[in-house]
């Protein structure tokens, strides 16, 4: 499982980093993303699904942060 923390990133690098990380990975691999609520939580998982990737889970991990698992 690959890991990416985008809690310190702001728009548009939140999307950009996730997109580029997924592009580097092989099909079938999982990516764990830690992101903040609000804009990243609303739009990062949705934009991954649009690209045909599967969002396996979204869970709150406290402090306004969420863990999202995405399968490429």
């Amino acid at each position, binding site marked *: 499982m690959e890991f990416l923390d985008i809690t310190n*990133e702001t*728009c*548009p*690098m939140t*999307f*950009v980093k*996730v997109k580029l990380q997924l592009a580097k990975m092989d099909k079938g691999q999982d990516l764990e993303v830690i992101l903040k609520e609000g804009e990243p939580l609303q739009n990062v998982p949705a934009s991954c699904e*649009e*690209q*045909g990737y599967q969002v396996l889970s979204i869970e709150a991990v406290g402090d306004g942060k969420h863990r999202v698992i995405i399968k490429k």
Partner: protein
Amino acid sequence: MTDKVEVKTDKKDLTIVCFSGDFDKVLAAFVMATGAAATNRKVTIFFTFWGLNVLKKDFGRKALGKGILAKVFNFLLGGRNKLPLSRLNFGGASPDLMTSMMKKHNVATLPELIEAAHALGIRLLACEMALHILELERDDLIEEVEDVVGVATFLNESENAHIIFV
């Protein structure tokens, strides 16, 4: 960020006309471009007039062109590192001040956004007419520039796209 990303989408394309060579406006163009590309849109940026400064291979000041006027213009305009702020430029100090404020708040800097744009496969086009006026050659521009085109090509390729003028 060297892997090129294939954009597969049924979303409307986005074309940005980057006419301005102002630091803040170019920044806005690249934020929109990278944000759109990262959310699955095909993005093209068409650089014309002052916007061409962003594409110069020399990031600083260089007297490009043959005629004296072109040389003076190109030297004074400079490249990517010399883009002025559209307001409160303070003799050229502001872009560095603004960049340090951006870093402090974890906002991507202009070079980072340009690098991301390359990695996301955003198409960079240069305006043929503006290149002629400023006596710039294709070789004066960064290699990431896909093509030098005219307004007809730009319009044809943006037929079904949103067009934003910066």
